[in-house]
């Protein structure tokens, strides 16, 4: 029998991160008859048990003094030891910040092919193929592990999480063999951005570009974002010009996002910007230039002046949402 391990992380004391739900759902889609076990290094009983909602019956919780504060290197070692103990064939992680640190180490520790930043999976545990974007998303490659074992990292927000049950998963303790040398990297503290919703976590993003003509016009973008409960994003041009903070930048040298809806306001659609948002599920572009490249990748487009369109769009959305 084949074995899949899914690395999961708690979001708070009651639930798991959405990226963990996505990883659990992806595991279901390729499992065939394979067993799936979730693996965590921290999390409350309630949060870990909720993995049961995503089809997993068993969560293995690694416990060790050196896992007290988060360490990417100790986590990778603990997970690798567990994977070896059950001769796991596939380890699935989210390609979020945490996953990107541990997946390459797992690849080396387990001599398993690393398939990073995947946007689609096909096949089953005997022969799994992954599709991933390269050249800033201008091409897609299909890759598979040549070694029989695979470490798969999923691009966040692409695999839609699906609840399929409501039985609490059972939690089993695992005691890895860790020494100080395994925990040489430690997280000392984490700072959450207060107030504003991060583009990397938002389901809807409203982004402004040079067509907004100045920082003083961004309240139009912010207003639309507020109506939709969306994050505000920005093109590189407006960040470089100092109109918006770097944290809002979407694109090749900013953040890569895959929201359900991306609204591009006054953004022409340079390839470097598309690199950051082309895997958005739905794209609406507003630009007064009918030949702007953004219209070639948009699902919906409004050719018009953002200063006139945005207030009307906001009013129309408010009417529909609160109507």
């Amino acid at each position, binding site marked *: 029998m084949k074995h899949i391990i899914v690395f999961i992380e708690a979001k708070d004391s009651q639930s798991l991160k959405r990226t963990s739900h996505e990883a659990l759902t992806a595991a279901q889609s390729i499992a065939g008859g394979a067993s799936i076990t979730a693996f965590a290094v921290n999390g409350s009983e309630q949060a870990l048990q909720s993995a049961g909602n995503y089809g997993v019956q068993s969560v293995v919780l690694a416990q060790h003094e050196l896992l007290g504060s988060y360490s990417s290197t100790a986590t990778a070692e603990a997970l690798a030891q567990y994977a070896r103990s059950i001769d796991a064939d596939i380890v699935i992680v989210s390609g979020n910040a945490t996953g990107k640190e541990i997946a390459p180490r797992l690849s080396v520790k387990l001599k398993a092919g690393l398939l990073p930043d995947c946007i689609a999976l096909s096949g089953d545990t005997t022969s799994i193929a992954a599709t991933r974007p390269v050249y800033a998303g201008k091409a897609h490659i299909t*890759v598979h592990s040549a070694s029989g074992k695979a470490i798969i990292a999923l691009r966040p927000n692409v695999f839609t999480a699906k609840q399929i049950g409501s039985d609490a998963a059972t939690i089993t303790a695992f005691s890895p063999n860790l020494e100080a040398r395994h925990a040489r990297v430690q997280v000392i503290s984490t700072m959450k951005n207060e107030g504003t919703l991060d583009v990397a976590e938002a389901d809807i993003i409203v982004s402004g570009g040079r067509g907004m003509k100045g920082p003083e016009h961004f309240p139009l973008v912010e207003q639309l974002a507020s109506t939709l409960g969306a994050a505000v994003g920005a093109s590189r041009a407006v960040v470089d010009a100092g109109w918006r903070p770097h944290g809002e930048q979407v694109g090749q040298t900013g953040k890569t996002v895959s929201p359900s809806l991306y609204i591009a306001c006054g953004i022409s659609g340079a390839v470097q910007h598309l690199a950051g948002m082309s895997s958005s599920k739905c794209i609406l572009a507003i630009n007064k230039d009918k030949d702007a490249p953004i219209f070639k990748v948009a699902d919906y487009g409004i050719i018009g002046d953002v200063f006139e369109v945005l207030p009307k769009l906001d009013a129309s959305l408010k009417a529909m949402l609160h109507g």
Partner: protein
Amino acid sequence: MNILVCISQVPDTTTKIQVSGDGQTIDKSGVKFILNPYDEFAIEEGLKLREQFGGAVTALTVGSETSKEILRTALAMGVDKACIVKTDAQLDSYNVAENIAGFAKNISPDLIIFGRQSIDFDSSSMAPMVAEMIDMPSISVVSSWKIEGNEIQAERDIEGGKEILSTTLPCVISAQKGLNDPRYPKLPDIMKAKSKPIEEIEPCHGNHLVSLSSMALPSSKRVGMIVGDSDADITSIVTALHEQAKVI
């Protein structure tokens, strides 16, 4: 401080990508190749640390003869030594990491610096992968940091915020944009760099762990409903977002 900076040559960001006849690689005709943009921050960080702590900076790349161009850039910026693991083969990330790890084991650097990702394959995996192969700690996507003796404190962006981490030298890091302001090489240094030696190293052909079966342009399955800006047009879009796309 003995610093190793690992850099790679990639197609320019504005390149129009076409798949070549083999169905697995890009068509290189007419493509302009550049130093991976994130690697500029890596080179600059190495040079700044040498200025602060003394020592030497070595730039390394794994690639074909044309990759020497980026080593010339690194030399012009001020690195002390430039080396190339010379191969025309299309190595995957794991094999590149094995070659870098092999080189690093020979020079025992205090610090290895990468750019956070190369903009061709966007794997973001080299720093942790090489670090694992040579049993070093690593921190990726470092946006700011300080070194005191052997102690390191670094800051990196995570979803919705930042992490502050601690580790010790020797270690591997990857540089985020904004870690520093890369210097522009001066013309006299560019000219001198043309005749500086570049050490060539034989590649090792290690473990084949990942196979690439095909490359294709993404299929565009976008709806493509483009309208004007009349009130009726805007209403039609809102309706479509709600009823067709079901995203609001």
